[in-house]
């Protein structure tokens, strides 16, 4: 069940999706964190951030919208508050990071990348660049490169670039990340979306738009993983609506080396463990020795 993302070793391919699992302690009463391949925590920026007003989430058909707005304690706040918690666990820690400027990305990388307890940084590029008038790092390949270059320059810790899904050709971004020295990719972030209350004529989210996640987007995510996997040699962590072992295996067959369970944690906190156990059983039943033997085995 062991997989590797750069030098990060995971004892099984299953992590949790950033933002759906808090900073670690929140679900620790429900599942043994050490059974996960890695814990991925919510996005951290260099400074503390308040995030969006409420309402911040809204349920949709087989999915949900979120516009939490990346509130968080900042890099140093995270270290002070949560790194000690992880001392009790052996599970690898992936910290999701973001910034409003390229310098922000560099700064948070320097701080968190030098923490021994941090096994990898997952770089969320679905953020507007305040300096460039709101252009999104994740959908403009030139801006995208500047971020990956900056993050790479500031750390030797493995970096996983989390691609934005709302692009015409994800292969360009996958390749750019690989060229800039990324150790892995995460595919996909939630998809830009919106819901409106027709009685009040107000968007259901305070932020107006948010990201769609859950089973609704799984077929989109599988396609993006499949495409990205064809474009690069670095490993991919696939996510988007994973609820069952079969869902996870679908991403693996499509080309993902690891998978992340996101929205499913809300539906059932034991989802990730069920996925791990189920993959193990499936591999045994199908006489597949290593999960790595399944990666990208989809037939033409």
């Amino acid at each position, binding site marked *: 069940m062991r997989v590797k993302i750069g030098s990060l070793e995971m004892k099984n391919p299953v992590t949790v999706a950033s933002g*759906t699992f*808090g900073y670690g302690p*929140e679900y620790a009463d429900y599942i043994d964190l050490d059974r996960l391949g890695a814990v991925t925590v919510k996005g951290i920026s260099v400074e503390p951030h308040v995030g969006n007003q409420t*309402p911040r*989430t809204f349920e949709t058909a087989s999915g949900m919208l979120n516009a*939490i707005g990346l509130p968080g304690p900042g890099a140093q706040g995270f270290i002070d508050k949560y790194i000690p918690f992880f001392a009790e666990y052996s599970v690898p820690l992936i910290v999701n990071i973001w910034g409003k400027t390229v310098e922000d990305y560099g700064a948070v990388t320097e701080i968190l990348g030098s923490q021994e307890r941090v096994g990898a940084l997952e770089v969320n590029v679905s953020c507007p660049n305040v300096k460039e008038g709101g252009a999104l790092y994740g959908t403009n390949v030139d801006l995208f490169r500047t971020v990956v270059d900056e993050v790479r320059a500031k750390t030797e810790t493995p970096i996983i670039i989390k691609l934005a899904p709302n692009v015409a050709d994800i292969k360009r971004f996958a390749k750019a990340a690989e060229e800039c020295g990324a150790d892995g990719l995460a595919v996909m972030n939630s998809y830009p979306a919106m819901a409106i209350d027709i009685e009040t004529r107000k968007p259901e989210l305070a932020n107006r738009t948010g990201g769609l996640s*859950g*089973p609704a987007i799984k077929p989109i995510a599988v396609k993006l993983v499949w495409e990205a996997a064809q474009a690069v040699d670095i490993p991919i962590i696939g996510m988007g609506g994973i609820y069952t072992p079969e869902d996870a295996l679908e991403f693996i067959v499509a080309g993902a080396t690891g998978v992340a369970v996101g929205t499913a944690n*809300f539906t059932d906190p034991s989802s990730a463990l069920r996925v791990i156990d189920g993959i193990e059983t499936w591999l045994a039943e199908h006489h597949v020795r290593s999960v790595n033997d399944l990666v990208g085995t989809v037939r033409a």
Partner: protein
Amino acid sequence: MNQEKTTVLEHRVFQGDYRLLRVAAPIIGPQVKPGQFVHLRVPRLEQAVLRRPFSVFKADEEGLSILYATVGMGTEVLNSVESGEVIDLMGPLGTGFPTLGKDKTLPVLVAGGYGNAALYLQAKNLPIKGGAFFGGRTAQDILCVGEFEALGWDVRVTTDDGSLGTKGLVTAALDPWLAEQDLDAVELFSCGPNPMLKAVGDRALEKGFTAWLSMDRNMACGVGACLTCVIKRKTEAGWEWARCCKDGPVFNAEEILWED
């Protein structure tokens, strides 16, 4: 805090729009403290990714019950659940009501709608029984008056349409009553719609008595992980987000920064 597959023991119309759902929950039941809630996965609601939060009405070694109103897709499907079916619960969740402060001798309950359910365990546990103010739109919305009276509470009812008790908002009964009490002795516990909570909270701040409010916010995770259910809590510097599911749902009225 646990996750438990509970079995439905009883499920019936309680009164008006409200139903009582009682489940066997030997793990969660004994842990419940007043003002806590459970997070329930509605069976057969496959297209829903989120659980639904409900205050615990009653709880003991064997099980627990909730009182719920049918308001949307989830509660509608919940209606069809039958005895013997299995419901996945997380709980008990949240920080509930504190017990009566050492210097307090006059507990007061203020409830609207399912707020009565949320207050029942507190009403039972409080060492002293005082005044209980229940508001609703019509007589149908006033739950469990007899049960609270049986516990020793002095229950006053208001309804918007006057179909039971005094006509008017709950504050119409509360204000004159409070005016005659020693407010330093008062400790108030409230659960109900946000406008009611705000009205109660405003009075606590103005008149200087202690009030605990159980805040109703949409939730996703229920365990403090997703930051959906946040409200603004006053700090020295201004405010910070507090999570209703974990830091609350019960907050001291002094802490809450209301917004319009």
